[in-house]
């Protein structure tokens, strides 16, 4: 639980980590180096408490009120909707969620899809919703890693996965058949923090809004 007037923010490890630290510095909220927070996981600086957690854990920390704010990729929010407020598009960590198929596949746009398409993904909820919205029956195979392998061994017709540069897809002889959505880093807030500690939380939000707008 958070307490007092110190505002806590959960930031993710992984690809958004550097961008999150840089944003905190540009917002003049906290200057932290990656080693320091990587070692301690929880650092207090000025009026801010910074917590380092796994990317997919950020919404849980915020929804349960263990952090007032969180920086998290939109791709994570697609899969774990919660009771938090999504406040700002922080405009870094851009990537796309795509349907990728083997280079030699005949699959392309919706008109080429079989009556039941089978895809492997780490994003079952988003993938299912997207295909259903396109009137397409889908069988989703949920995998936890190396999704790119699945079509090559005939497990599935294609994969739904995140790509920033497209390099991993090319390395695995996959091409993009459709884009399901674009993701960037987002600032999310606990619903109660916005109400019970409005001034302190809003002041941090305002600084981050300004810093992210001037960078974009």
């Amino acid at each position, binding site marked *: *639980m*958070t*307490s007092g007037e110190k505002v806590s923010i959960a930031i993710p490890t992984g690809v958004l980590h550097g961008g999150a630290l840089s944003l905190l510095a540009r917002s003049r909220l906290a200057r932290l180096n990656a080693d320091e927070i990587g070692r301690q996981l929880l650092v207090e600086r000025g009026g801010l408490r910074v917590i380092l957690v796994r990317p997919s854990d950020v919404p849980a920390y*915020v*929804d*349960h*009120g*263990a952090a007032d704010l969180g920086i998290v990729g*939109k791709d994570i929010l697609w899969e774990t*909707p*919660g*009771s*938090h*407020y*999504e*406040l*700002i*598009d922080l405009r870094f960590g851009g990537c796309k969620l795509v349907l990728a198929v083997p280079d030699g596949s005949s699959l392309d746009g919706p008109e080429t899809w079989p009556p039941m398409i089978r895809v492997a993904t780490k994003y079952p909820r988003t993938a299912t919703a997207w295909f259903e919205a396109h009137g397409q029956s889908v069988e989703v195979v949920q995998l936890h890693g190396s999704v790119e392998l699945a079509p090559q061994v005939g497990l599935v017709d294609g994969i739904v996965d995140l790509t920033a540069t497209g390099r991993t897809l090319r390395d695995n002889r996959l091409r993009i058949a459709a884009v399901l959505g674009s993701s960037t880093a*987002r600032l999310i*807030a*606990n*619903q*109660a*923090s*916005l*109400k*019970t500690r*409005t001034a302190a939380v*809003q002041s941090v939000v305002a600084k981050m809004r300004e810093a992210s707008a001037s960078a974009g």
Partner: protein
Amino acid sequence: MPGFRDLLPLEAEILREAQESLLGEMRRWGYRHVITPLVENMDVLDLGLGVEQRRRLFKFTDGRGDVVALVGERTIPVARLVAGKLRTAALPLRLCYAGPVLSTDEGRFQQRRETYQVGAELVGASGPVADAEVIALAARCMEATGIRRYQIDVGHAEFFHGIMDAVKLPDDVKAAVRAALAARDFVALEALLEDTPLKSAEHELLLRFPALRGGPEILDAAGGLVRNRRSEAALSELAQVCDLLVAHGIREVVNLDLGAIRDFDYYTGVIFEGYGPDFGRPVAQGGRYDALLARFGRPAPATGFMVQLDLVSEMLTRAARPPALPRLDAALAWNGAGLNTALRLGSTLRLFGMRAVVDTQSRGEVEARAWWRAVGATNLVHCLGETKVAWSAKGQRTRRLPPEQVAARLAGGVK
């Protein structure tokens, strides 16, 4: 079974005490207690629930082939009661309830699928006086449980409806705006509103939704921005409620929150939420729902709220000073001929409202002291015969007295 759990004595007692405090406060305001079944016919629940809520119900068919469900909230059963068995009772009716509610959704508070709610409904009264009564009752209820530092956020569903009427947007975009707000997704909301050519003051208000909070001064600020009757009427109603809350003596714990996001299909007027200290979600929720009773065939305005009992007890358990629970006053041990004395002494002490437990086996002095520690009572009375007992209290030396003197002293020590 995931989502279901046992409450062990300490937790169960805290929860039970909190429930009694809440129901006690409601009764002090003239709310009568009703008990509705845990199971309701789906036809009944369908009248009041949205698609999502319906999906989350535990449903099954009973022996007669009717589809029934375990209740997911308890306002709808109360509405059924008011329009049914209580249809001849004069309005307004003040009713309160307490009981478990169930949900198949594991994403709720700590993955619990069974939680406890205590609520109050004021049916048959419209207007600020009724709204203020229910808000003040909610505040006093939170206070009654012993939660220190709480606040109530008050908003108005019509303020939102007025804005949505006034913004000039195609219907499909309006639907997307509603969906984005329901998901509290302000990034999507901003994108939707940016793409529209017609910018009005209402656009600005929507974008600033989460920040539309504060004291009575925000009513004037918002009044300067809205240009539609519905929102203006909502603001003037909120101003009246605010004045009444001053007289109720709870103005300091009330904030206005014009950007409160709630189930706007259900709520029709003043809405509110109660927050405790340092807790990531509202403990109490309520508001005006004037459309519900008509669906049961007895049109009537109504307002009410419910308190999430699990959250209250969680909050009390984690508080710096957890609530003082009544403890066992006396452990009555006995040795040989002392059993009858122990049983009589137990009856006497309980008559005076004390908590007393009588041992089930004969024990010597050392074993009796060990048993005393194990049951955690304030006093040990070791009954050694018809007329002779040894009384020990924590931090005092043991005294040998006749049993009636021990009873008198123990009873005299409590109020």
